[in-house]
Each structure stands twice: as structure tokens, then as C-alpha cells.
């Protein structure tokens, strides 16, 4: 039980996907202008990341490993991720058309979100079991959602802040992201690897 809790804490704070492993930076910068879109993107990514880390674990353990086809990992994981993202897009379009409109191009782009493939490959690299993979994926996605929400809230305030004109727009966004990454370094050492 403690192990599972440690995985969650470790992926959300200590080895945060965005701020300490620098994965998934494109949605982090791209969809964080408004809080609602950031939350929507976070939820969609959470769904996709959890499902894809579980199913890529299953594909690797039950299909690729017995047939000695580990060299097909990246290819088949991308296939798994693409299918799950396509599925998610259909579900979101049906259940929340506004979220679908707001997320726009970023929803299909979860396919190329490096965090999703990164987590699937890290699961294999760290020899996680089934539940560990699921928790690792979910924790990573929760961490992603957390920093998305924090960053979007900061950026909403930055819009009205009095910023020197050279720093306006994405420049101050990147500086803010760097400062957030610095502060997240404070969590390192919280969980021993």
C-alpha cells in the first residue's frame, strides 16, 4: 500500500512529468491561457494517460514479450495511444461539445504528447507491474493536471499584470514555467528512488 502511495506522491510532486522530466511541454505552453481549457486538457490527458499506460503494459507483457518482439515497443505503443486518443475524442465530442470546441486541435494532439509515450516507455524501463503502471500513469497525469491548473491560473493573472513590453506574452510564460520548475525542485528527496 505504501509503495502505491509513494508512486502517486513521487509522480505528482517529485518526478513531475512537466516540471522535472520536461515531458509534455507543448500542451503546457499551448493550452494554459485559460483555466477552463487547462482543466479540460488535464482531464482529457488524465483519461488517456491512465488508459494508455495500462494498455501498453498489457500489450508489452502479453503480446510483445512472449513473442520476443520488444523492438516493436515504440511502434505498437504509438498505435495504442493513437487508438485511445481517437476514442477519447469521440467520447468528448459526444459528452461535452463545448470542451471539444475549446480544446480544438490539442485533443488529437495528445497522440503526439511526449508525456504519454514517455510514461508508457518509463513503465517498461522501471519494470512496473500492472497496478504500478496504472498508478504511475494516473499519478503522472494528475501531476500534469496540477501544474497545468497552476500555470493557467498564473498566466490568467499575468495577462493583467504590468509586464515590461519585451517580456510580454510567451516570454514571461516561459520564465514563469522555469520558476515553477525551480520551486518543484524543492520536492526532490521527498521520496527515495
Amino acid at each position, binding site marked *: 500500500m505504501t509503495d502505491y502511495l509513494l508512486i502517486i506522491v513521487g509522480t505528482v510532486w517529485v518526478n513531475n512529468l512537466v516540471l522535472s522530466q520536461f515531458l509534455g511541454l507543448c500542451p503546457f505552453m499551448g493550452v494554459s491561457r485559460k483555466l477552463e481549457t487547462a482543466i479540460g486538457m488535464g482531464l482529457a490527458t488524465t483519461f488517456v494517460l491512465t488508459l494508455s499506460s495500462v494498455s501498453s503494459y498489457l*500489450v508489452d507483457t502479453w503480446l510483445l514479450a512472449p513473442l520476443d518482439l520488444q523492438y516493436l515497443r515504440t511502434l*505498437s505503443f504509438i498505435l495504442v495511444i493513437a*487508438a485511445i486518443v481517437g476514442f477519447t475524442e469521440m467520447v468528448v465530442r*459526444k459528452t461535452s*461539445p463545448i470542451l471539444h470546441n475549446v480544446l480544438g486541435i490539442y485533443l488529437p494532439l495528445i497522440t503526439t504528447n511526449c508525456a504519454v509515450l514517455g510514461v508508457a516507455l518509463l513503465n517498461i524501463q522501471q519494470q512496473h507491474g500492472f497496478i504500478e503502471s496504472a498508478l504511475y500513469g494516473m499519478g503522472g497525469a494528475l501531476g500534469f493536471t496540477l501544474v497545468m491548473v497552476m500555470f493557467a491560473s498564473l498566466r490568467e493573472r499575468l495577462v493583467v499584470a504590468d509586464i515590461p513590453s519585451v517580456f510580454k506574452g510567451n516570454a514571461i510564460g516561459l520564465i514563469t514555467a522555469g520558476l515553477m520548475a525551480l520551486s518543484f525542485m524543492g520536492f526532490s528527496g521527498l521520496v527515495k528512488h
Partner: protein
Amino acid sequence: MLSALFVVGGLAALFGLLLGFAAIRFRVEGDPLADKIDKLLPQTQCGQCTFPGCRPYAEAIAKGEADINQCPPGGEVTIQALAGLLGVEPKPLNAEHGEAPAQALVALIDEQTCIGCTLCIQACPVDAIVGAAKHMHTVIEAECTGCKLCLPPCPVDCILMVAVQPSPTTWKWPYPIIPLKEVA
């Protein structure tokens, strides 16, 4: 080598089936966003937005072909609601399409003057006027949206727009008004 082909091919076929099933199961009928916009519009069907009714205007907004500030009967409230739904900044009503009425209006036919020409019946977008040729017409108050489309065709100008009187079901307590006192 052959097993690799089978594995990748099999995975692709499996996911293809899954997505095909999902496409049928989660099919979206029509444009649900247009539905939501349509619900926010006042349904006067007055055509002041240059579209032939509220539904076509809603579809045009959903497609991004029309702006949100073209609905005078809805006024400020509708613009705010649309801006909230679509996540855009609210903007003032476009004066080209008319002005928002200060209060809800309803048509009233002066029955002494009405000659029973049926022209207003044809103009009414919500079928709120009843009557027959050469017989007096009258307005069903509950159906009338106050769109004023029946005013121009009337040859004897017997239709008046009057403010809706509050009924026991629509009456509300007035907002508390606290008089401001000047403190020296």
C-alpha cells in the same frame, strides 16, 4: 519476422474495430453546440439578426459565421449568456440590428379597428394570432414574443405593442433599493 507482421497487423485491426464501434456508439447527431446556443436565444423568431429565425442564427454562431451581438430582443442578457457559453468576451449589441426593448412587449389588437384581413396572421412567426378572413383577430398573449413583425403589414394600424403586465406566476418582489445618503 512473420510474427511481427501479424502482431502489428492484428493490433491495427483490433483498434480499427474498436474505433469503428465507438464511431457508431458515440455518433453525434446534428450539432449539439448549435442546440445549446439555440436554447439561450429568446425564440422570438423575429429575424432581426438577418437570419430567418433563432435556429439558423444559432447554427451560424456555432459555425463562427455570425457574431454574438446580433439579437436585439435578447439584449445584454443573451449576449452575456452566449459569451459565457462560447468563452469569448461579451460585446455591446450591434446597433445595425436594432435596439433592445426596455421591457418585455406583447402585441395587442384593437378589436374595434381590426378589419379581419389576415395579413398579420401570415406575418406572425410563432402563430400567436388567431382569426379568420373578415372576422376579428386576437393575440394569444402567452405565445406572443413581442417581435413587432405584425406591425408593418397591418393596413389599419390596429396593432399596439404594450408592456407585459405581471401575472401571479411571473410577479417578483422588487429589488431592495437603499437610498444613498450623503455623508459630510
